[in-house]
């Protein structure tokens, strides 16, 4: 019986927002634009002619080519060796001009000693190409020098190994992922705040335009508030889903495609390593949903008790404190996710979406604490719905000055 009209509110709220230009721009065009900014230059660069990628290497020293060739091949170059002759520069220059090869490098004794070499090319190459080439040459020279003094260059160059031995098992098994924890927390903060404020604005707009008198005479205030929150929540989920999906697409298809096109960008493979898995993403969405329900309820009641934007700006300050505090605390929590302070703070329902997320993502929260935080958040949602519903019911039809705290309490008691 109550659902058809709640559904009507949800539907209206959702369609009105999803159809708005800003939503479409923010949701679809935003990430697309970002991806394009990221992908296009790389893609364009990778489309260069094969000849350009073919370089000849003239190794006068006779010891560097063997080391350099495989390095450059994995970096996306086609290399071949040319024997050193006195007129090799002139001969190869002709071949470059004939666009037979993209350029050539001359290595000599000086290269062996100092890493200096000369690259002959028809046009100035990109900084990235110069860099990869330079580092490959200096690496080859270094390896050669180390080997001559009897050191296992490969082992050291590959970075050695740091074995991590966790002494207590409280910190779970996942690898610490600072980036995911931090940016995820920040993202949660942003999306929850933006959409909770959207609920407040929508409520305020209905109130100040007086349309609410007509709506409330047709349905329970509580149903209107519920429809509003669910509708805006569905919009936010749509947006988050599109963002996550495009992010996932970029990660699973985009990055490998880029790497295939430009093997010299091998370093970017690490990005894939730190991306969160499906489990973590589901948790992210769950934290978002509960966080949104808690804060949007509170923000709806703020919207209902105010009469103007200015008033609402002031009235939401206490809420902003609650939502900003965890963002300030997120760094210490990530750094020491298992401390009792981190544990305590992250179990406080209004902080949980951000702080518990940060702990989970950085691998410092045992499952039972995560579960407990969800139970506490669910209870908080119920409590807030009860409280906010009562404030909303009285406030939405009230004009005149903003209520004081004792008045608010009276609304809650009497509603």
């Amino acid at each position, binding site marked *: 019986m109550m659902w*058809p*009209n709640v559904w*009507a*509110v949800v539907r*209206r709220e959702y369609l*009105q927002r999803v159809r*708005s230009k800003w939503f479409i721009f923010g949701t679809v065009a935003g990430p697309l634009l970002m991806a394009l900014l990221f992908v296009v230059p790389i893609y364009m660069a990778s489309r260069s002619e094969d000849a350009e990628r073919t370089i000849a290497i003239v190794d006068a020293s006779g010891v560097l080519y063997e080391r350099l060739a495989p390095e450059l091949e994995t970096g996306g170059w086609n290399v071949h060796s040319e024997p050193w002759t006195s007129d090799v520069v002139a001969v190869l220059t002709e071949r470059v001009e004939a666009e037979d090869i993209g350029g050539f490098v001359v290595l000599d004794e000086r290269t062996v000693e100092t890493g200096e070499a000369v690259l002959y090319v028809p046009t100035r190459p990109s900084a990235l190409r110069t860099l990869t080439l330079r580092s490959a040459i200096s690496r080859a020279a270094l390896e050669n020098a180390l080997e001559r003094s009897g050191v296992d260059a490969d082992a050291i160059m590959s970075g050695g190994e740091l074995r991590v031995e966790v002494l207590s098992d409280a910190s779970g098994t996942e690898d610490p992922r600072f980036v995911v924890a931090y940016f995820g927390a920040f993202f949660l903060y942003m999306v929850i705040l933006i959409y909770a404020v959207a609920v407040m604005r929508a409520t305020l707009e*209905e109130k100040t*335009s*007086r*349309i*609410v*008198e*007509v*709506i*409330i*005479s*047709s*349905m329970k205030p509580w149903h209107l508030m519920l429809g509003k929150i669910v509708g805006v929540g569905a919009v936010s989920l749509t947006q988050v889903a599109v963002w996550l999906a495009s992010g996932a697409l970029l990660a699973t298809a985009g990055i490998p495609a880029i790497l295939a096109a430009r093997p010299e960008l091998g370093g970017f493979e690490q990005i894939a390593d730190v991306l969160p898995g499906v489990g973590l993403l589901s948790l992210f969405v769950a934290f978002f949903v509960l966080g949104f329900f808690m804060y949007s309820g509170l923000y709806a009641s703020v919207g209902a008790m105010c009469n103007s934007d200015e008033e609402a700006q002031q009235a939401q300050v206490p809420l902003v404190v609650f939502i900003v505090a965890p963002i300030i605390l997120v760094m210490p929590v990530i750094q020491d996710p298992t401390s009792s302070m981190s544990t305590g703070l992250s179990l406080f329902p209004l902080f949980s979406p951000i702080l518990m997320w940060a702990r989970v993502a950085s691998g410092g929260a045992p499952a039972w604490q995560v579960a407990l935080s969800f139970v506490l958040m669910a209870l908080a949602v119920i409590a807030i719905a009860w409280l906010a519903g009562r404030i909303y019911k009285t406030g939405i*039809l009230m004009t005149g000055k903003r209520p004081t705290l004792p008045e608010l309490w009276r609304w809650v008691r009497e509603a």
Partner: protein
Amino acid sequence: MTTGENGFAVRLEGVTKRFGKRTAVSNLDLEVPKGVICGLLGPNGSGKTTTIRMIMGILRPDEGSVSLFGSDPDVTRRTKVGYLPEERGVYKKMKCLEFLVFLGEIRGVPRAEGKRRALSWLERLGLPEWADKRVEDLSKGMQQKIQFIGTVIHEPELLILDEPFSGLDPINQDVLEEIVRDFRSKGTTVLFSTHLMDHAERLCERVFLISKAHKVLDADLRELKASERKGVVAVEFRGSDRWLAGPEVKRIEQVNGGVHLILNEGADHQAILRRGVEARAEILRFDLVEPRLHDIFVRYAGADSVGDAGMPTTAGGARA
């Protein structure tokens, strides 16, 4: 306590509403019979809108009770009542048709049916080409029509209209009057507030007059006029006016071109006429006045109520 009784669409018993120290509505009893057009009249700030808001559950009375169709108003209101508030609110960004369908939907009208009704109403009010325009693109008067459609889209049994005529041009005022009569003929009860006596005079079967928070008149309009007719004589004459005063006459009011004699109850107006003839006055006119609601309004509401507006009720506009 008498909510079991039927016959009344709206019933207020001993309703009082205070805002701080000021009493907006005082101990008001109001009974709107089913199927009747009732007018809620009163000067600015007299408590009309406050009364309507209490009927609609937007304000809660401090004392007394409100019932609709003899039952709990909260439940009844949502499906049986159409309410046009005085401060007209719309979703500006919505398209007119969608807005109307939405208003139907929250009161249980299926979307397809809502769309059909909305389109036929838009047609009737001359707005068919605006269906897919945003509400904000319409003029104030057109928005008001949209809002009126929104009020009736669920075919309510009771229409409560707060100052429905203000803001409409004379042509649309007539259209609205006709629509209200149509609803009446289909058995819908209508309660509307106004300070425009012409509409009230043409439409109402029953009038309630509120002045300074109190009900000062509650009557069947036809009976009221009949009783008032006996009481006032319009006279135009030349010569002495000494014959006018007499035991029958309670009060003499100067009006344009002559005087109105307000008679005492049961007085014989013929006696005055005879006195005039004897006094050799040249009598140009001696009429039993069909009392205008306007005059009744002014007499009952009293001139002293003017400027007593402490409530944001009627926004500007012509005063009756």
